[in-house]
């Protein structure tokens, strides 16, 4: 029984946008939290800590996100945990985002001149204070444009969660297409909706980058 593509189908797609945004937000907040520790570990003085963080980053950057989602989703079942697609997608994306953000932020921390570390150390600040009051505030300014850029990437990545059965925008598109058989129209609309989420962020990222370039000239 083939249904026509109507206003209701469009509303269904539109309402799925909220799940894409919610999944992106969770993955971003989770990824940022874990990513901060990854970045700190990557810039640590302790070799073992540095190596562990490097291994973590290599692992998640060197394998497809889809495999990571499969492993989390099916791996949890194998280990006897009943992880629903929603939790599996959030966890998988968080792990993946943390590796990428950790690596982006490592670069930002290392972009703070050595003299800043030395001056803060010479004043008697120990690592936590040195990071919190001197290094991170300066690293954040460098980090904002690439971080917003990565957020665009992350929103698009959430579409892979459709494959493990989480109903976000892409999965909603599949459902509507299965009922209407109008793939070009349906996925065209899906693509436009993704574009409307990502484009403003891309613009913002570019603007922040220009502003940063001006400020450091």
């Amino acid at each position: 029984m083939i249904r026509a593509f109507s206003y209701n189908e469009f509303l269904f797609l539109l309402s799925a946008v909220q799940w894409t945004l919610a999944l992106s937000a969770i993955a971003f907040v989770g990824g940022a939290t874990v990513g901060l520790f990854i970045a700190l570990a990557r810039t640590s003085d302790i070799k073992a800590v540095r190596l562990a963080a490097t291994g973590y980053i290599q692992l998640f950057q060197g394998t497809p996100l889809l495999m990571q989602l499969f492993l989390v989703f099916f791996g949890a079942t194998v280990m006897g945990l009943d992880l629903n697609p929603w939790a599996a997608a959030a966890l998988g994306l968080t792990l993946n985002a943390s590796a990428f953000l950790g690596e982006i932020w490592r670069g930002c921390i290392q972009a703070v001149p050595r003299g800043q570390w030395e001056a803060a150390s010479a004043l008697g600040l120990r690592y936590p204070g040195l990071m919190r009051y001197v290094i991170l505030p300066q690293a954040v300014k460098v980090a904002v444009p690439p971080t917003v850029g990565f957020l665009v990437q992350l929103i698009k990545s959430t579409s892979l969660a459709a494959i493990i059965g989480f109903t976000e925008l892409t999965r909603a598109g599949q459902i509507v297409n299965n009922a209407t058989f109008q793939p070009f129209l349906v996925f065209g609309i899906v693509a436009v909706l993704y574009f409307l989420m990502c484009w403003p962020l891309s613009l913002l990222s570019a603007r922040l980058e220009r502003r940063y370039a001006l400020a450091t000239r």
Partner: protein
Amino acid sequence: MASAYDTTDVPAPRPVSGEVVIRMAGVQKWYDSFHVLKDIELEVHKGERIVICGPSGSGKSTLIRCINQLEKHQKGTITVNGVTIDANHRHLDQVRRDVGMVFQQFNLFPHLTVVENCMLAPMRVRGTSKQEARDIAMKYLARVRIPEQADKYPGQLSGGQQQRVAIARSLCMNPKVMLFDEPTSALDPEMVKEVLDTMIGLAEDGMTMLCVTHEMGFAKSVADRVIFMDRGEIVEQATPAEFFTNPRSERTRNFLGQILTH
């Protein structure tokens, strides 16, 4: 170990107390196979002003950077105000609280205003209240004669002003010793004097100072002792009068010949 300072027959121009603030004994350091510091023996007395000079790469910056452990030495002992530096981080913290440092590139924190630069360490290291830290900061900014710049950011100041802020920032921690690592080398010529004047003011107030500098005028007029380093060794140390008029080693004479002829 008797330093050359004690054995020289030229009397010190100014009485210096016998209290030793810094003692370096048998200090050695390597960068991989490069031997940067060779068996350094040095005693700095309270109130003493020492100028360290020497060709680039002679280890003079490395020497003073070992005192607050921005560089780690591999052999020998360094004692500051009775605390010997070792693996115990508390000892290092104590040493760093007693030792202020001024860098060639100022190294002010660009995201903080001038007064915030000065308040940070008293608040976060000593636990001073915000109001008290501000009072301390304003006192030392007045002393380096730029209190009116307190709420500007470092990037808005000239190099000379930035370096004076850096001096004030160190003084806010009430250090027992000040280390200066080529404090005027990154400055435009017209700004050198304001920084040197600030340093002279500090010296007159009795601050113990170790300065790595090429300002020989400063060495002549302010130093109690000039140390000449070459290839990781202390080659010669003497009073400025002795050092500039009657250098004993060939290497010192060559060095002085090069820097004083142009």
